[in-house]
């Protein structure tokens, strides 16, 4: 059984249909990537999983349980965390308060403390700036904070939306290394949305290509990297 399964998901914004029947499956322990151009529906897919933009029809199953009518906070409780597009740091909260918010539903003080030390070990920069307001961090630091905040919930499934957006190549490299590390060391399953298809496919097991609200092709990441059409359209080769 897949950890996460989307079956024929349709999502609308008012009268505009953003998702026209998406089916995706993510297995335990995998890194799965969702690639495609702007406006393909990648972000909407993640927001539908988290129940922020509820679907009109279709099914979303987490561990075989239907979650498409569950409220967003309960989905977080079930072990799904998201690093949204544009990072969405709470600008007027300090770095450590942002991290505390990530652990909002947890009650184990000891565990939260240990977790915070863990993320500070991954991103020492955040430790230096723990009392600074989130809004004053640089783009790269905000991305680190966004990932750390999601990790503070100790998620089973981590959804990442364009973590490389607007960052310098070196920082992107660092972020991708951390994503792989999270997957390997914490055994966190990852669904990664990316425009940087090349880098995403290199670390993923499986990939889906989205276009105009539908899944255009689905294959192993290695196959997609070699696929002529994908190379032309998304890898710029």
């Amino acid at each position, binding site marked *: 059984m897949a950890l996460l399964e989307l079956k024929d998901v349709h999502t609308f914004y008012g009268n505009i249909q953003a998702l026209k029947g998406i089916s995706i499956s993510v297995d335990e322990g995998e890194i799965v990537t969702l690639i495609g151009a702007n406006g393909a529906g990648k972000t909407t897919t993640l927001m539908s999983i*988290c129940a*922020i933009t509820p679907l009109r029809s279709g099914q979303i199953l987490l561990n075989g349980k239907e979650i498409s009518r569950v*409220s*967003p*906070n309960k989905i*977080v*409780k079930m072990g799904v*965390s*998201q690093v*949204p597009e544009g990072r*969405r740091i*709470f*600008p*007027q*909260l300090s770095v450590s*308060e942002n991290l*505390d*918010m*990530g652990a*909002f*539903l947890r009650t184990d003080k000891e565990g939260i403390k240990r977790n915070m030390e863990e993320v500070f070990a991954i991103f020492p920069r955040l430790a230096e700036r723990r009392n600074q307001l989130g*809004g004053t961090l640089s783009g790269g630091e905000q991305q680190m904070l966004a990932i750390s*905040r999601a990790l503070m*919930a100790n998620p089973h499934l981590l959804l990442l939306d364009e973590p490389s957006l607007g960052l310098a190549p070196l920082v992107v490299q660092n972020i991708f290394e951390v994503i792989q590390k999270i997957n390997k060391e914490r055994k966190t399953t990852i669904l990664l949305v990316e425009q940087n298809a090349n880098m995403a496919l290199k670390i993923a097991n499986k990939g889906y290509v989205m276009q105009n609200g539908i899944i255009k092709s689905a294959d192993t990441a290695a196959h997609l990297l070699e696929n002529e059409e994908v190379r032309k359209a998304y890898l710029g080769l």
Partner: protein
Amino acid sequence: MEYFLKLFLSGTAKGSIYALIALGYTMVYGIIQLINFAHGEIYMIGGFTALIFGGFFFSKGMPVGFVLLFSVLLSIIYAAAFGYTIEKIAYRPLRGKPRLSALISAIGVSMVLQNFVLLAQTEKFLPFPSYLPEFKWLQPYKEYINSTQLIILGVTAVIMVLLTFLIKFTRMGKAMRATAQDMHMAQLVGVDINQVISMTFIIGSALAAIGGVLICSYMGQINYYIGFIAGIKAFVAAVLGGIGSIPGAVLGSFVLGWTESLGTGYISSDYEDAFAFIILIVILLIKPEGILGRTRRQKV
């Protein structure tokens, strides 16, 4: 100088009351970007509830201290229940719809409540007995400040400290701040925003009820219409300070209280209500986002 001090202190007391009401406006606005026009009515209902229960307890021969305590507690509970219910039936179904819908709904609720009290009670001004204690030791200074004013100042100060603590350090407070800054993101970390929004209305309404009891005790009368003008003034105070900002609402309220008091004292009492709007226009011309308001910069 003596005259100034007198006006200044009465302005401070007035400002304290505005602050208790303005906080409800600014907290609700901070979280759901709604000007809750029914908020002034909550304040009026708080006053009426205290009047009714106070009279009842007093007629049963309860000691004054208990009458005060129970009538205030009941008025807080009553007002909080009103705030909670109004949000649930008049605003929640309109969430996610254009903002104007909820605003019109708020004006509707305000009219319904005013007329409800008008029909259920009376259109006349009713005397409001003060159960607040008189301090003997304050006698020599009563030129400057009377017992009721001092109590108003003290109660407001205590409430401000409690509220600051709640918002800064408690889990609910953090959830409120996070929701105000980014509602969807708050949901993504597991905040139940319905709970946060309900709580905001409950706290705001409770503060308004306390303000209602205090001001009615001070003025010695109550009427179904008092919520309207007080609501508008507190709204002006919240905008003056920067709507959405809690310290801004408090500061704006004091600025308004002082302006009114000094304006009536030095210029003319005929224009008491006009001063509120004059200062609003002046501040908005100089600093459109309010004294402590932030312009929202979008980082792309």
